[in-house]
């Protein structure tokens, strides 16, 4: 009832009751009684006006409302008197709720969410598999499956790839995906504007290159959201292609987190790859026919596959590696690349956030308990003058709800900020991961529910205990006498110990993760990563592998080297830490290769300046020179690991090796040098075997190349000048992925940085909370024991020993917490082991450091209360109750 209404109600009620009395008095007077006598009788018979009004209010249902109002006012008054406590409670809750919500949001986006397709549970991926792993089946098999398999309603294929297009700005590289025409129909996705691709878009088109669809995000960013883009013709790898539709960004492809700009029919990709009976470059997804179990579909697909493989010639080894059988897996959540990379760190972070929430709840519970204890006398008085127990309990409830409500509100705020920060963290200049982190209501309700439950349970219990206490006892004994105080104090101390334990776990985690990150950062890369600018350069397709391209490369290097500040520049098919990798199989002279594992090496072709640009020392023999051209004798350089593996202690200069995974049998190379090991794609994994070839002598056609430029100072400043130099050699050159080597190394450590940063934040918060909790407890203890301290002092205890009393209590609680915390941390050690690098989860230094830190903090928290205790005047202390 609003205030205005309420006032009117009260006035009306007053009028009505007065009218009644006056009418009664008038009647009595009419029957002959004097006015004063009538008034007296009326008043007596009617009863007390106030009581009647109260009864009327109650009958009308206003009582509960009034009580609620009173409770709220009391709560806010209490908060205003003790803003510090309330602030800490609310903020710590907010942090716990915010952190859990934000992290769960990422967890949800990466691990839990189903793709927005029709009936995700009916979609499966179809893989060709062997002992080596599994990968997409070859295109001809896909066609067979699509045409003949009865267990599937439809089968489609896709393959993410950089797609070059020419719209209105010259050559550009877009993040694209090749798809079969029926891909989006299989998924059940509809276009936002225009239409999706359909099966007929697969038909060989002749002049009309066909249709393409773009993502909404690309439409906004690249074409400014202009609806006339539909129907526009662009060039894709020299084919004319019409943009026919715009699709939701998250469902362009089936890889969560990977941004796709444009989808183009597969027929425009590479006819050779599509005919290749053993090339694994696709992902195949099928929609199961209603009622058909996945196992049955797999069996049918496998049958078709074995028949298919009977007509394919591969070595037995290769067949067992990757072409043994068909495997099927759920496609509802998309490909699992991002998931497998991030599931463990995210789970660990979720646990850590949960611990912070627990610490916050413990804090709130402790404060509510403290308040309930302080109020025992208050409750006793109210009980004695007639309040109902329900009323008192309801009051405690309201208070708890206000605090929780405040925590929730700020928690939402923190969650928003946290989610934005996480999103930024993921996409820091790195366009490879894009997550849809829209606000997750599910998690918020969960976090709020948990907080509510714990806050209420822990706040209500002491309230109930106090309300059930005998008022007589409560009135006499002061803060000492009420039964259950000891139990309540024990709970309170238990909560502080729990908080300390949680802090220990979080801080130990922080210590381990930060150390792990440092270890990773100090891994010897094998080359100097500072001061190197990198970029990818792609000429027009027709120039791939031609002498024109080779001479262009030389000219570009000459030009780039002329830029002031550039020290060296070189080409390579791939640079370290760029995310690219390429392998081959070789056989070395004089080495008995037992399995295909022995034959595997990583392969890169480089220009003569490459090693010098990266400052990779050539340990034996020589680097490449201009004389190692296409016609010259074929030479190769191994890295240390490869040299040691194939040739043991002897120096491999002059020995021969040949490639075995290419159709041509004469790919025999002579080894002319051994170069130092480098980390190519991971800082954690042991170094792999590497073989380098001169670019003109590469076993594969040279397409796009990576350029590395070593500069004085900040490499990014050289991006423009270098770009201009390259452009001066031909505007048809497409330059992409401009970056610095240092940044690429940093990006490789994204997960570890995320975990270290967040656990440090959580650890600090938990530590602060325990400090505050401990301080509060000690202060209360001193208050409670004032009398006892007075007695001690009167009996001759020194101020020092009183201080010692408080400090030892603090240290005792902290030690208990540390012991429990370290045991818990040790128990969690196994879970975190996989995340750590170069650090043992039971690292004694970290454990010792955390222990010292927390004990020191406990001592600090004890300073205030102990000083107060020691400065008590014994006389007044004795007088206190």
């Amino acid at each position, binding site marked *: 009832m609003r205030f205005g209404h309420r006032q009117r109600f009260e006035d009306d009620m007053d009028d009505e009751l007065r009218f009644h009395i006056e009418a009664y008095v008038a*009647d009595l007077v009419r029957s002959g009684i004097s006015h004063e006598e009538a008034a007296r009788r009326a008043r007596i018979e009617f009863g007390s006006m106030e009581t009647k009004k109260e009864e009327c209010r*109650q009958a*009308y249902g206003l009582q509960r409302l009034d009580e609620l109002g009173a409770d709220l006012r009391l709560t806010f008054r209490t908060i205003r008197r003790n803003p510090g406590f309330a602030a800490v409670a609310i903020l710590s809750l907010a942090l716990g709720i915010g952190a859990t919500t934000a992290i769960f949001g990422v967890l949800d986006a990466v691990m839990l969410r189903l793709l927005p397709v029709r009936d995700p549970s009916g979609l499966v991926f179809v893989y060709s598999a062997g002992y080596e792993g599994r990968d997409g089946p070859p295109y001809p098999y896909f066609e067979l499956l699509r045409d003949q398999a009865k267990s599937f309603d439809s089968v489609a294929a896709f393959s993410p790839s950089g797609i070059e297009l020419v719209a209105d700005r010259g050559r550009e590289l877009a993040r694209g995906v090749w798809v079969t025409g029926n891909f989006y129909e299989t998924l059940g996705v509809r276009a936002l504007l225009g239409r999706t691709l359909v099966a007929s878009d697969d038909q060989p088109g002749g002049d009309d290159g066909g249709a393409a669809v773009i993502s909404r995000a690309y439409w906004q960013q690249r074409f400014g959201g202009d609806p006339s883009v539909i129907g526009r013709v662009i060039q894709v790898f020299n084919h004319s292609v019409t943009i026919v539709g715009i699709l939701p960004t998250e469902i362009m492809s089936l890889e969560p987190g990977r941004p796709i700009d444009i989808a183009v029919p597969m027929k425009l990709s590479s006819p050779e790859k599509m005919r290749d009976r053993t090339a694994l470059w696709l992902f195949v997804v099928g929609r199961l026919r209603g009622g058909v179990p996945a196992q049955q579909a797999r069996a049918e697909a496998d049958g078709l596959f074995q028949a298919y493989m009977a007509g394919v010639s591969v070595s037995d080894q290769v067949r067992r590696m990757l072409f043994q059988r068909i495997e099927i897996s759920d496609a509802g959540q998309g490909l699992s690349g991002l998931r497998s990379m991030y599931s463990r760190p995210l789970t660990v972070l979720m646990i850590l956030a949960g611990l912070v929430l627990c610490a916050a709840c413990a804090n709130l519970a402790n404060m509510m308990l403290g308040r309930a204890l302080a109020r025992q006398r208050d409750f006793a008085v109210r009980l004695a003058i007639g309040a109902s127990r329900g009323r008192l309990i309801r009051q405690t409830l309201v208070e708890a709800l206000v605090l929780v409500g405040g925590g929730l509100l700020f928690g939402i705020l923190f969650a928003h900020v946290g989610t934005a920060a996480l999103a930024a963290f993921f996409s820091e200049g790195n366009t490879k991961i894009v997550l849809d982190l829209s606000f997750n209501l599910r998690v918020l309700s969960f976090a709020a529910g948990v907080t509510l439950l714990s806050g209420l349970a822990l706040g209500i219990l002491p309230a109930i205990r106090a309300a059930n206490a005998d008022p007589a006892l409560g009135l006499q004994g002061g803060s000492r006498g009420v039964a259950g105080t000891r139990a309540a104090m024990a709970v309170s101390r238990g909560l502080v110990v729990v908080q300390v334990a949680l802090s220990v776990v979080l801080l130990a985690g922080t210590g381990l993760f930060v150390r792990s990150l440092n270890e990773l950062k100090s891994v010897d890369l094998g080359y100097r990563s500072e001061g190197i600018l990198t970029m990818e350069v792609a000429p027009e397709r027709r120039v791939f592998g031609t002498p024109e391209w080779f001479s262009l490369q030389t000219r570009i290097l000459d030009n780039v080297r002329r830029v002031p500040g550039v020290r060296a520049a070189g080409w390579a098919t791939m640079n370290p830490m760029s995310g690219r990798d390429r392998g081959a199989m070789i056989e070395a002279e004089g080495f008995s290769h037992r399995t295909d594992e022995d034959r595997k090496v990583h392969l890169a072709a480089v220009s003569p300046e490459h090693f010098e640009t990266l400052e990779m020392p050539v340990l034996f023999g020589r680097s490449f020179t201009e004389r190692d051209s296409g016609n010259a004798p074929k030479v190769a350089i191994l890295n240390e690991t490869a040299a040691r593996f194939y040739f043991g202690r002897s120096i491999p200069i002059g020995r021969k090796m040949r490639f075995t995974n290419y159709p041509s049998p004469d790919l025999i190379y002579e080894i002319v040098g051994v170069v130092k090991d480098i980390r190519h794609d991971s800082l954690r994994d042991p170094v792999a075997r590497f073989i380098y070839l001169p670019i003109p002598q590469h076993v594969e056609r040279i397409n796009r190349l990576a350029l590395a430029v070593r500069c004085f100072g900040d490499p990014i400043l050289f991006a423009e000048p270098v770009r201009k130099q390259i452009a001066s050699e031909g505007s048809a050159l497409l330059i992409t992925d401009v970056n610095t080597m240092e940044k690429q190394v940093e990006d490789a450590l994204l997960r570890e940085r995320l975990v270290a940063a967040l656990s440090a934040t959580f650890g600090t918060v938990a530590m602060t909370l325990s400090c505050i909790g401990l301080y509060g407890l000690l202060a209360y203890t001193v208050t409670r024991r004032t009398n006892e301290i007075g007695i001690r002092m009167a009996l001759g205890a020194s101020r020092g020993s009183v201080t010692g009393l408080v400090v030892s209590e603090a240290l005792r609680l902290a030690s208990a917490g540390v012991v429990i915390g370290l045991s818990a941390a040790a128990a969690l050690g196994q879970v975190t082991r996989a995340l750590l690098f170069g650090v043992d989860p039971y690292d004694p230094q970290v454990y010792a450091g955390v222990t010292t830190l927390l004990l020191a903090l406990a001592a600090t928290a004890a300073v205030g209360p102990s000083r107060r205790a020691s400065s008590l005047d014994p006389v007044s202390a004795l007088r206190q109750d």
Partner: protein
Amino acid sequence: MNKQVELLQGTLDMLILKAVSLGALHGYGILVRLEQITGGRLHIQQGSLYPALYRLERKGLIAAEWGESDNKRRAKYYTLTAAGRKQLKAETALWNDFSTVVAGVLKAVPGES
């Protein structure tokens, strides 16, 4: 005055509904009418009237409106609502059944089982 019958609990609401069904009344008027009808044999506590009225109004069985009394004073008049009419009918039927049954019990002669 005849012996006054003490009001059984719960019947006050029913009586108020009946009184109001005969025409709009303010609180005092309800008291007067009930005394009239019962010839003064029913004594209703003045104090318990208004809480009952507020309760009935909250339940939606009677509706209130401010009007002018006989002596030109401002008074709150109550009328029966449709729901109130239904409730009155139901309670009357219940009461009649109840009183028949109890009367039957009380009329029992020793020897009848």
